[in-house]
């Protein structure tokens, strides 16, 4: 188990290093000089000279890369071009909004997706199974920003049941939650479909296995068999995939935050792209990539730990 953990962590770190280098390298691969990109169109010659010296642009690429890495490790992701505030500070101030959005989205998907999948597996080929099948494909395929736009149109603009803009009043939990409902639904709907399909397939597979037949042959009540024996096993694959799911949800969060004018990492990056606030964009993308890699690695490790077979054999 320990060996597996170390290998997995090693791979994760390697990927992060390559990803960050790739992003860093992209600056230099792009036509136009890095100074304009970093400083934006408002740079004066003095600022450019100063930055050139600081960035050490005459030094070889590898040295620059190394310096960049050192900075990242120290938590220095550069500074906002306009306000000069640290990118790291800005990023972490916006992260909680996105995090709450994603947590709620995961909540939706677990609360709806898992029962749907379970029910479909138990009542195979019933009308609810067929409905779940079509619904899942639809939920997975329909783009999240379209869901966001349509739910905005229907529930906020037309019916006026839920708020259309912002994250709600600070300190007011109810207001916060009301403002979370539509955006998190937009972000999480895809995962609802994905989980429903996955849990259904997983449950069907588990329910067909020999040990379930043994449990039935011993007369165990159906409820015990389904929920304590089968579901426990069927859920395992979903944990590993949750890591990947978070990556999709991060992308979905960008759209949800823009459509519903919510604060968050997505909106931050988008606004920074528009204003060519390059350090904020690159720093934030690095951070979100890092978060994504952490999530997938953690998901893999947790799912390995949960299955005693893997735990023992590694």
């Amino acid at each position, binding site marked *: 188990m320990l060996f597996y953990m170390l290998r997995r962590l090693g*791979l994760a770190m*390697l*990927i*992060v290093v*390559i*990803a960050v280098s*790739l*992003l860093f390298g*992209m*600056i230099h691969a*792009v036509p136009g000089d890095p100074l304009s*990109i970093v400083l934006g169109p408002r740079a004066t010659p003095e600022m450019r000279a100063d930055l050139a010296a600081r960035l050490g642009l005459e030094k070889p690429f590898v040295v620059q890369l190394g310096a960049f890495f050192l900075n990242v490790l120290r938590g220095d992701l550069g500074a906002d071009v306009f306000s000069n505030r640290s990118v790291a500070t800005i990023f972490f101030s916006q992260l909680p909004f996105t995090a709450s959005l994603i947590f709620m989205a995961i909540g939706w998907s677990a609360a709806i997706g898992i029962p749907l999948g379970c029910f479909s597996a138990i009542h195979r080929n019933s009308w609810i199974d067929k409905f779940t099948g*079509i619904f899942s*494909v*639809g939920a*997975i*395929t*329909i*783009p999240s*920003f*379209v869901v966001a*736009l*349509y739910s*905005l*149109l229907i529930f906020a*603009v*037309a019916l006026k049941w839920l708020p259309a803009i912002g994250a709600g009043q600070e300190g007011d939990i109810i207001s916060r939650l009301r403002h979370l409902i539509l955006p998190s639904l937009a972000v999480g709907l895809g995962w609802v479909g994905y989980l429903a399909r996955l849990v259904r*397939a997983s449950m069907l597979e588990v329910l067909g296995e020999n040990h379930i037949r043994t449990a039935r042959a011993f007369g165990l009540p159906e409820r015990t068999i389904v929920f304590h024996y089968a579901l426990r096993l069927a859920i395992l694959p979903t944990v590993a995939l949750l890591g990947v799911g978070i*990556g*999709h949800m*991060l*992308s979905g969060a*960008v*759209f949800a935050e*823009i*459509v519903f004018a919510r604060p968050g990492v*997505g909106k931050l*990056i*988008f606004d*920074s*792209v*528009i204003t*060519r606030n*390059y350090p904020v*964009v*690159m720093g*934030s*993308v690095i951070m*979100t*990539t890092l978060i*994504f*890699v952490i999530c*997938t690695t953690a998901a893999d490790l947790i799912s390995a730990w949960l299955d005693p077979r893997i735990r023992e054999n590694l």
Partner: protein
Amino acid sequence: MPNIPASTTAAPTPWQSLINHLGRDPMALLGIILVVIMVGSAILAPWIAPHDPNKINVRYRLKPPSADHWLGTDQLGRDVLSRVIMGSRIALQVALISIAVAGSCGLLLGMLAGYGPRWLDSVLIVLFDTVRSFPTIMFALAVVTLMGPSLNTVILVVIVTSIPVYGRIVRSQTQALRNHEFILAERAMGAGAMRVLGLHMLSNVIGPLLIIASMDIPVVVTIEAGLSFLGLGVRPPTASWGAILNDGYAFIRNTPWLVIAGGVPLILTTLGFTFLGEALRDVFDPKLRREA
């Protein structure tokens, strides 16, 4: 004298099984219809669009559907239906270029990874995983910042993020085949082996590749639409479905029709290709269900 009959059923050909499947699965049929409509409208766009999609007529802005404008007009008075039809062109363009370029790159890299030396395989796998470790839209935003917004930037992003998808499938297929065919190859004539393998490999890999391509098209079309919706994709006045949604969002309180018009074709296209892909997968290679 009672006689004992022998079993007579023969296995159906792939085309027969596809037709059978279509008969049983209404979703697959629906998928094909939707795909045909979309591709047809993309190809025939200049002839079937009722108006010039870029013709501005500010006096008739934001009108709801009417006899003259089946889907109404946008904020500059342009006919929405014509813009939607032109939008299918953009979507198809993106889809085809991405399959062509990403598909061939993925094919090449995948075969290299599956058939080449182990170190090359490890390197390529790490590269694939690295590209997949960027949340797609975040990556797209980073590229847009550096290269400026345009349809070409979007296509570049789409290609780069699709290559690992094709690459992985080709790689696993190649690996499976390698163990299979290699033994045959050893017995084959020396020089002929490589060519035989190459052709064999290719013909076996094309099938899953096509299935993955049809599952990838909705993803690719969605990325373009998403970026254009953010204003970071096609440049105005080009009509892409995402751009229509962008306009629709800005004027959502004035009229719902723009948002509906931009979203519905996108939904139908992505659903259509997905149903088609699933049908193809069910018929030709049910094992692939696990691969994604």
